[in-house]
């Protein structure tokens, strides 16, 4: 009798949980729809012909699909060049990622003079706001003769303290015996790093790699400041130029935005597990 009553209470609790879960799900679905509206509207509008964009009331689904805006971007604007520059920036930032990994490894696995002080110095740079360094970095690059060059665009953001920190955290967990064994086999220090450390660090490399790709693809401020020539513009600088030049042509603007956003969404969908779980790896509690 008693177990029966508690069973009943349990099913009741389960029922009320289910209703509550439905309510939570519906609220989230509505919120999710709201959050997705800009994406949906952007993609659908980029395929509408100019005349349909200016129509009132607006159509949700394009009555007539057209790719003219995308071809216009490449034929009449320099989106091909912007794309090439953006890819160069992304590739260079992967080089930066490698430097971060190297530094993280040294902080994790070597003993050397001034190690702690240097590491605190690295951490301290995380707190410096970009607005303070913006002008001096420009002056420094100018002094080095790097304004209006690809090197000037890439260098300021090449290494990052947070990334070094994450590499250090991860690599400290690698057992020393593994390194000693490789050294006994006669491997040089650099080879130990390349052939033992990096393969083990794959999880953190995956997270950092994706975040680096996204950051490089989206890079805006330094290309904007450093590049005077349109031949050095990245996609985001080109897009902000397009907004200025074609203020009234919304379909073209949406096509440009779609071209920038959709690749990132695809990459995100493919690797979302790494990104979202990356926050747990990085020990953000």
């Amino acid at each position, binding site marked *: 009798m008693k177990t029966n009553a508690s069973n009943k209470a349990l099913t009741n609790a389960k029922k009320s949980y289910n209703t509550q879960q439905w309510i939570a799900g519906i609220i989230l679905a509505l919120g999710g729809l709201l959050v997705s509206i800009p994406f949906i509207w952007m993609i659908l509008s980029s395929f509408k012909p100019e005349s349909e964009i200016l129509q009132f009331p607006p159509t949700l689904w394009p009555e007539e699909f057209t790719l003219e805006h995308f071809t216009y971007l490449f034929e009449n604007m320099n989106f091909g060049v912007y794309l090439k520059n953006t890819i160069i920036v992304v590739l260079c930032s992967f080089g930066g990622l490698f430097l971060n990994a190297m530094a993280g490894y040294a902080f994790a696995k070597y003993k050397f003079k001034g190690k702690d002080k240097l590491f605190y110095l690295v951490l301290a740079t995380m707190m410096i706001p970009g*607005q303070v360094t913006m002008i001096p970095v420009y002056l420094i690059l100018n002094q080095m003769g790097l304004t209006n060059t690809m090197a000037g665009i890439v260098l300021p953001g090449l290494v990052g303290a947070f990334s070094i920190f994450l590499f250090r955290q991860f690599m400290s967990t690698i057992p020393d015996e593994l390194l000693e064994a490789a050294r006994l086999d006669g491997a040089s220090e650099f080879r130990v790093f390349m052939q033992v450390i990096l393969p083990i660090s794959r999880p953190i490399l995956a997270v950092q790699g994706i975040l680096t790709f996204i950051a490089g693809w989206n890079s805006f401020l330094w290309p904007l400041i450093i590049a005077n020539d349109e031949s050095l513009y990245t996609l985001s600088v080109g897009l902000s130029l397009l907004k200025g030049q074609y203020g009234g042509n919304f379909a073209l603007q*949406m096509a440009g935005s779609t071209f920038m956003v959709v690749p990132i969404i695809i990459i995100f969908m493919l690797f979302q597990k790494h990104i979202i779980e990356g926050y747990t790896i990085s020990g953000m509690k």
Partner: protein
Amino acid sequence: MKSYSNKTPYLFIGPAITLLMLFSLLPIFVALIISFTDIDLAGIADWSNISFIGLENYKEIFKDPIFLKSIGNTLFYVVFGVPFVIICSLGIALLINFGQARIFKAFRLVFYMPSITNVVAVAVVWAYLYNPQFGLFNYLLSFFNVPAVPWLQDPTMAKVSLIALALWRAIGVNMIIFLAALQGIPKTYYEAAQLDGASNWKQLTNITLPLLRYAIFFVSITTMIGWLQFFEEPFVMTKGGPLDSTTSVALFIYRNGFQLSNFGYAAAGSFILFIAIIIITMIQFRLQKKDTDF
């Protein structure tokens, strides 16, 4: 036993440290020095054109009506932006954490997506949504007989519109931080509370929120620093207008530095922002300490 040479570690950290020193630490000192000079384009070309003017930049900047206005705007962003970001991202994290069905994992992705997208592209899209004539928002509102809203044309409304856009982008990362913190709370606490017959609301206010204190503190500090540096959204969407009503301090610095080439003046502005950030962060740490004392 040490089996590597003394130089090895320095070779590993060398490149990264050099770049960090050059582009993060050295600039602080350069900024401080040039904020006491009248360096401009002529000064860059020939250093003999630069003269030391003491505190002149700092005195002048506090008389600059646009700078004062940009401080007011930035405070507006902080005061309204920070609570909104925390409430929305925490609320969504709680709802997602509540559900056990698989669909709730998919919601994580949907809400996270805006935060990885390019700010320029997003600002371009939102400017279209906000367009008074052809924009989607006013069209949707017209169903409810709401008259056309001047999203980016009215000084106050423009600030609110920019906050809405930045909120949309900020939810994702903070939601993930809250979710990670929520998953760290032991289930036994809730089981014990349920045995005592505590309602959901009681469990939320007596278990969840107190245990999330550290995460809330972390998010509020990073969000506040983010709002103090608010730059890209007003830069791309409104260029600071109408009538400088959306100009943030960061945008003011950028404009003086790179459009008007008053590098010294802009550096003074950036130092004031830096000091403000440090002070506000320290106050928050103080409050947090008091909070945990009892």
